[in-house]
Each structure stands twice: as structure tokens, then as C-alpha cells.
């Protein structure tokens, strides 16, 4: 259930999951200080099975395993923050979980959204755009194959 106030939660969790520990720490240096937290689980590293579908809509198959790091923290008022991210960056997972918890409260939300999440999202959008442009420049269209399906 996503309540009205935290409608943006999936978006900020996604932005945090893609950011490196260094990036988050650099942005936090100019943001208000984070409250103390208690680690509930992790940060721990495991594997997750990535599944794909042939052609995007075929039968699901196991593509391979990827490393995954997860962390859950709790603030003094009981708010829980979670982070699951690809890779093995424990520090980033813990920071992202703390930020997720802080972003759910009113006290820090606006400052953190403006100071941390927006710059991360802008940077990530720019990087995605650059990758897409590089890929588009080398695209080959198999027009005959496409019509045979």
C-alpha cells in the first residue's frame, strides 16, 4: 500500500538504489544531518535470480544470478527504511535505507528531496539519455526479420 504522502517513495528508492555510496555521501555533506538509526537487518549481500523472456514476451527463463545487497534500518520513532540494490556496496545500501526512512517523515522530506534525490535523478536521467544516444547511433534495423515473426 502506498499512501498519498509517500506516493513518490518508489521513485526515490529507485534513485537511491542506482546511486553509489560516494555520490550519496557527497550530496549529504550539504544536506541537514541525518538522525541516528538502528540497523534491523544487514547490510548483507546475496544473490538473486534474474529472469528474462525470449523476445520480451516469450516463456520466462533464468538469465543468470546477480549480486544483491539489502539493508533495513529503523529510526527512533519506529519508521522503517529499506534498500535492495544490485551490486555489493554495503555502505550505499545502509545510507539508502536511512534516507528512505528519513524521507517518509515530514521533518526532513523536502530538504532531502531537493538536496539528494533530485540531483541523483537528474544525473541518472542524463546518463541514461547518453547511453540511449550511443546505442541509437549504432542501431541496425532487421526489417525483414521483424515482419517474419
Amino acid at each position, binding site marked *: 500500500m502506498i499512501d498519498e504522502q509517500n506516493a513518490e517513495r518508489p521513485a526515490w528508492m529507485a534513485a537511491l538504489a542506482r546511486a553509489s555510496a560516494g555520490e550519496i555521501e557527497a550530496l549529504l555533506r550539504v544536506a541537514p544531518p541525518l538522525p541516528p538509526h*538502528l*540497523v*534491523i*537487518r544487514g547490510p*548483507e549481500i546475496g544473490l538473486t535470480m534474474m529472469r528474462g523472456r525470449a523476445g520480451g514476451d516469450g516463456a520466462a527463463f533464468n538469465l543468470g544470478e546477480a549480486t544483491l545487497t539489502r539493508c*533495513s534500518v*529503523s529510526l527512533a520513532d*519506529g519508521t*522503517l527504511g529499506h534498500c535492495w540494490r544490485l551490486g555489493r556496496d554495503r555502505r550505499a545500501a545502509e545510507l539508502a535505507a536511512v534516507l528512505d526512512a528519513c524521507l517518509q517523515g515530514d521533518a526532513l522530506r523536502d530538504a532531502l528531496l531537493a538536496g539528494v534525490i533530485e540531483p541523483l535523478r537528474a544525473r541518472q536521467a542524463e546518463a541514461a539519455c547518453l547511453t540511449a544516444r550511443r546505442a541509437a547511433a549504432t542501431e541496425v534495423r532487421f526489417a525483414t526479420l521483424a515482419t517474419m515473426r
Partner: protein
Amino acid sequence: MKPGFTDPVFDSHEGFSALMQAMARPGRIQRCQMLRDLPKGLASAAAAALLTLADAQTLVWTDAQGEAREWIAFHTGAPLVAEPGRAQFLLATRSMPELAALNPGTDEIPQDSATLIVQVQALDDEFGWWLTGPGIEVTHRLSAQGLPADFLQQWAANTARFPRGVDLVLCAGERLAALPRTTRISETC
């Protein structure tokens, strides 16, 4: 939400070792003190045993409510079922479910049976029942406070259907003792 194991690997090894020793020597008390800060209603040994045994692939039943129930769901990752008969692992925090209602496995696959963890008020291996059976050279003593009044009848019926049957783990605070389905209990020497 309270934390679970601080070191999931070594703490669950310790829990597994305690459970294995307890099952191998029915009635002998083992200690499990890995969990110190727990939600209300959960005892340290019982919670450690459940975290050790249950994972996302086991069906768990518990009568714990509120924060304790959330804690179990979060830290084990196991699906919680409403009917005791479907569960592979059960944690009774208040009153023990009927042993006859739990999954006893089948004659072909007796290891599919349920394991029931019960929180009792007190556990002592100096006095009480006389236990005999595999893992016990002569006799072991065990006393548990807070089991149902007809527990011994239920237990006799449980041992009678061997190789099927339910295994029991009794927990009080940090103390833990096991009663595998092969252990016979009598009130007299």
C-alpha cells in the same frame, strides 16, 4: 521493529548446533542467547530456533500477534499460514496446539512432519518426568511448566505412530530442550 541475528551466518550456526545437540540428547538443556532485544511475547531461545529453522521456503504457523508476528514474518521471510496442520514449523507462544492436528509426515517421507516450538514458563532437567529412548543411555529427567494438562496422553499418541509424528522443542527464556518423536515419557521411574 527489533533487529534479528547480528551475524546471520554464525548466529544461525550456533542455533543449529544447539538444536542438533538438543535433538541428539532428548531432555538435556541447551542455551541459545544470541537474541537479546526481542519484541514482547517472544523468548530468546524460541525466537533463535525459529530464525534458524525457517526461511522463505518453509510454511510457518505462530500464535504470536502484533509486533512479534511482524518480527517473525520479516526476519524469517517465511509465509505465515493460518492452519497449524499445513505448517512445517510452528511457534506456540501462549498455548500449545493439539499434536494430533499437526502434520505427522507419511510412512514413506516421515521427515516431512512438523516441528513444534513451544514457549513454556520453566524448564528443568534436574527433576520431573523420566525420559527414555534413542539418545538417552539410561534415563534423563525433564520438567516443563505451562504445557496442557493432557500433554502426556497427546505425547503417547504421538510416539505411537512412529515413524510418523511431530518433533517438539521446548523453550523457556534462553533454555531449550527437545523431545523428538522417539522419546518416551513416563511420570514414574
